[in-house]
């Protein structure tokens, strides 16, 4: 069945669905093509409970026609070439990766938008913090961000948070108290997690499973805006894998080629096309749409599509605090150390933030199951085992520095035309490495971990030698003023094709040190009026 609309959007994650809800609400005919299936929360929860290994993807289908990467196997979908394995994952299903995001809703800081002019590294954004600030406010209202107005986050605000703050976990309170007088002040994290009923979703019930799934949708996910777009008249087509973008002789996009799970093909035509399929699938789609007339692919006259792949390389550091902290309760993180996101040293090393995790040693060490095994091995039984397990688990701290990465042309994703998925679509081939600018910041993060561990009089100190991914995929179709160096302009409109817009963290020229989702949302909302204006 061919589709036709004013606006055809590829991808139903936070960027695509926010834009769809606004555009459909403005009376435009909108079709969203989503590669993956619709997912019901109840069945996802059941699949999560039944999963042996509870990785972020555990609750969700991995379909043959829309495969996704998996956290426990970096070679499951990606083909990897680089010095470092790229471990970031994402979901392909209605609602996208917000199903298993943590919910952290930090804004970037003003210097993040002017890294080149302030520090001589990276590249400047074509917009400033001030340009985006009103859209951050909009995004916070759309997602429902709970925040503490007194938190010092180096990001000036013109409007209050829409929701009162999520209380700090007891562990975070104790960590903050232990660090009092040091430079490492603990700041409450703004979170798209309800602290009271908001947007017809309940307050957080402390399920401690934000990743991989919130059982009650207290944590925002994009199914909210998918539903809103549908109520406004948008058509959402699941199981519709866009495999190619067709461009006419005049440089305007004319159609999308869509493959269905049964192998059949369809076309989607429209006036304006929006690709919001995240940092791997979007550039892959553009590059695999190469033709004789566009041998480098669609929207790629700059040769920047697929390049500058960035993540927030992270490091796991864990220890045993001297006192019970009651971890394993509540949201998976409620606070962090944020002053390290901004500073004059950014000419020397990357900005970073430190997430104070709230789920014990589950991520780095497979606790509490592994703790059970250790204690049983020591001969503990019955009430003695219960007491020891509770005591140990309560004192488990995990400190995770996440660092900025610079855009590097060699870090890239390309379609591998020789290695295809089950329906014949090229798989992503990735070349990725972490440079010294980021590694120096990881060292600083580790130093601060040691200071925190000392403040908590912690023992049993562990520092994982390897870097882990944050699943923050950024940079692969960056925005900029210069069409020779960037893929889209400040409105996220392709420099090459006036009726093509690209949304998502792929447009980030630099990665900053903050979790990307709120900035994705703010940019998507900001792009809506330009998308509307581009309709001829």
């Amino acid at each position, binding site marked *: 069945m061919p589709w036709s609309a004013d606006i055809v959007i590829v991808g139903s994650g936070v960027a695509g669905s926010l834009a769809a809800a606004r555009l459909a609400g403005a009376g435009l005919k909108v079709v969203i093509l989503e590669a993956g299936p619709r997912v019901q929360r109840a069945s996802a929860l059941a699949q999560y*409970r039944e999963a042996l290994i509870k990785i972020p993807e555990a609750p969700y289908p991995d379909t043959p026609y829309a495969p996704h990467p998996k956290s426990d196997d970096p070679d499951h979908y990606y083909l990897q070439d680089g010095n470092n394995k790229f471990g970031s994952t994402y979901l392909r299903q209605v609602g996208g990766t917000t199903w298993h995001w943590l919910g952290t809703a930090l804004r970037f800081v003003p210097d993040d938008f002017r890294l080149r002019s302030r520090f001589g590294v990276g590249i400047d954004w074509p917009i400033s913090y001030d340009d985006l600030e009103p859209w951050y406010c909009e995004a916070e209202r759309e997602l429902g961000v709970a925040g503490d107005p007194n938190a010092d986050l180096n990001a000036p605000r013109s409007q209050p948070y829409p929701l009162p703050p999520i209380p700090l976990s007891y562990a975070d309170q104790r960590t903050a108290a232990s660090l009092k007088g040091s430079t490492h002040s603990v700041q409450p994290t703004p979170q798209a997690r309800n602290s009271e009923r908001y947007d017809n979703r309940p307050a957080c019930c*402390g399920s401690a499973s934000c990743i991989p799934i919130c059982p009650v949708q207290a944590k925002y996910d994009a199914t909210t805006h998918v539903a809103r777009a549908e109520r406004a008249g948008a058509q959402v087509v699941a199981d519709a894998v866009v495999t190619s973008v067709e461009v006419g002789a005049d440089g305007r996009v004319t159609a999308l080629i869509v493959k269905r799970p049964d192998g059949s093909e369809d076309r989607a035509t429209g006036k304006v096309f929006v690709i919001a399929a995240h940092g791997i699938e979007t550039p892959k789609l553009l590059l695999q749409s190469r033709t004789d007339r566009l041998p480098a692919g669609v929207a790629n006259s700059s040769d920047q599509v697929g390049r500058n792949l960035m993540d927030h390389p992270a490091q796991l550091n864990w220890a045993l605090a001297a006192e019970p902290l009651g971890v*394993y309760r509540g949201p998976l993180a409620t606070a962090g150390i944020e002053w390290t996101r901004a500073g004059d040293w950014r000419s020397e090393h990357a900005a970073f933030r430190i997430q104070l995790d709230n789920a014990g040693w589950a991520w780095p060490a497979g606790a509490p*199951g592994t703790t059970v095994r250790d204690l049983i091995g020591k001969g503990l039984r019955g*009430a003695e085992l219960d007491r020891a397990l509770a005591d140990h688990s*309560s004192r488990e701290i995990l400190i995770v520095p996440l660092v900025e990465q610079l855009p590097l042309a060699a870090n890239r994703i390309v379609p591998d035309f020789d290695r295809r998925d089950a329906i014949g679509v090229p798989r992503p081939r990735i070349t990725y490495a972490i440079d010294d600018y980021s590694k120096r910041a990881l060292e600083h993060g580790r130093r601060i971990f040691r200071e925190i561990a000392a403040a908590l009089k912690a023992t049993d100190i562990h520092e994982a030698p390897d870097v882990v991914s944050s699943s923050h995929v950024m940079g692969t179709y960056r925005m900029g003023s210069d069409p020779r160096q960037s893929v889209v302009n400040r409105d996220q409109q392709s420099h090459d094709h006036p009726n093509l817009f690209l949304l998502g963290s792929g447009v980030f020229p630099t990665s900053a040190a903050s979790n990307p989702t709120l900035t994705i949302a703010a940019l998507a909302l900001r792009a809506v009026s330009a998308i509307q204006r581009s309709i001829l």
Partner: protein
Amino acid sequence: MASLTRRALLWSAVWLAPAAHLRAFAPPPSAAAPTSLDEFLEVSQRLLGRSKLDRELAQIYLDAVLSNADDAVQLAYLVESNANPTPEMKALASTIIEWWYTGVCTINGAPRLATHTGALMWSALGITAPGTCAGPFGAWSHPPV
């Protein structure tokens, strides 16, 4: 009542088991039949120091033990008594405790999730299993009990 055939089967298992698994060459337990669910529950209660255990879970763990001939023999010894246990009996006892706590057992060398919410480790920690609502908003900000 175990049938003669079952007794014979277990006898075979004993004879097939490596000598190290025999309890100091002592004669096998007189109740040398595949352990019943009630017997396994009794052993589990004794090992865990808990009186109320889920019968359906017990059946899964029992089946997992019985899927291994050596373990089946050791379980029969544990049913009789866990006084003066051999290293093999101790190992199986630890395994059974671990399964109840983690909700993950092993069948034919492969781990299998028996339960997520029913794993005893969550109640030992004083929390509900992740993915289930824990209680009132903000409870995580209070000191642990």
